[in-house]
């Protein structure tokens, strides 16, 4: 139990996917203009990451032990098609949830955070439960980073910012400051 807790907290705060691994930066900088959109994108991210962890576990256990060189290709194809499949099922079963997450799913299917999750949990040799917890932590971390950045960006809209620094430049510097704050979590576990 301790171990699972550690995996979760580590992926959520200490090794935050966006702020310390720089994964999934395109949506991080692109869709963080509004707080609500950012939050929904984060939820979609958690959703896709859970599917990814399940796919990666199945592939690693039954397929890739025979053909390790197919790892990248099979990860991408299997993850992309299962997300598409779940998306279709979701449209039928729960239209409300689909409306909330729908437009983001194609956007984040196999972006670097998703593929990174599959690769990292393979490298760390996680089993099914550990992999799911890791995915939950990583997705939560991405959501947290997105919401924090979106919150700050909403505030900056009413400030008087010089022209040259507007756009990506100011967002990156804000992200750097948030990332610096997150480095404080590094000492959370001493053992």
């Amino acid at each position: 139990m301790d171990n699972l807790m550690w995996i979760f907290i580590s992926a959520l705060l200490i090794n935050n996917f966006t702020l310390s691994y720089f994964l999934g930066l395109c949506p991080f900088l692109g869709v963080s203009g509004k707080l609500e959109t950012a939050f929904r994108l984060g939820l979609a991210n958690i959703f896709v990451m859970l599917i990814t962890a399940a796919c990666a576990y199945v592939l690693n256990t039954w397929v890739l032990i025979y053909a390790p060189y197919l790892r990248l290709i099979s990860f991408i194809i299997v993850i992309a098609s299962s997300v598409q499949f779940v998306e279709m099922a979701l449209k039928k079963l729960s239209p409300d949830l689909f409306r909330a997450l729908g437009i983001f799913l194609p956007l984040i299917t196999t972006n670097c955070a998703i593929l990174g999750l599959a690769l990292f949990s393979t490298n760390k040799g996680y089993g099914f439960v550990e992999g799911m917890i890791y995915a939950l932590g990583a997705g939560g971390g991405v959501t947290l980073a997105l919401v924090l950045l979106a919150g700050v960006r909403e505030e900056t809209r009413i400030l008087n910012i010089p022209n040259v620094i507007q756009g990506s430049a100011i967002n990156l510097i804000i992200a750097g400051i948030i990332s610096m704050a997150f480095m404080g979590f590094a000492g959370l576990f001493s053992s």
Partner: protein
Amino acid sequence: MNKLVEYKNQNAQEFLKGLWDENPVFVAVLGMCPALAVTNTAINSLAMGLATTFVLLCSSILVSTFKSIIPKQVRITAYIIIIATFVTVVDFALAAFTPAIHKELGAFIALIVVNCLILGRQEAFASKNPVGLSIMDALGMSAGFTFAMLCIGIPREVLGSGSLFNIQLFGDSFEPWVVMILPPGGFFMLGFLLLGFNWYSQKKKERALIKQKLN
């Protein structure tokens, strides 16, 4: 003769636009993940730039050669499979020849697959243009990418650990600015570089305006 000159000019143009006017990192803000994640030392930046160059060049050649037989409906999937194949080649080659660098770059080599720069060039250029031009475009874009990687990587290494390509630059009294080689340093460096880029292009625009008025 005239035609030959024109042909050469076009090739040079495709090459140069990637280096500056349409620089993938500074202007299009593509391929950010590797640009920030592995630029903590100059060697890593260079290795990442070269690996990306190889993948982009090979996939552009293959895509523009087979553009007429790739069905339109599944083209993205086809591009991804082609890219993933070359990335696997690079991954295994680096693990065999330079195990130290491979270990440092880790999963980020594999993540070249999802670098939007590469897929973007296939969709926007290689699938519509002849092989020769696609090669020039791929070379220009990856030169621009490697240039940007070094622009971020060199200052980060110099400031963060006081060395360049692992050679110590300063004496013992140098106090390294550690945050530059940690994750926040990547965000700050790229942020300030973009700021400089914006400032430069704005000045250029203003100067052009003033010139216009004077005329």
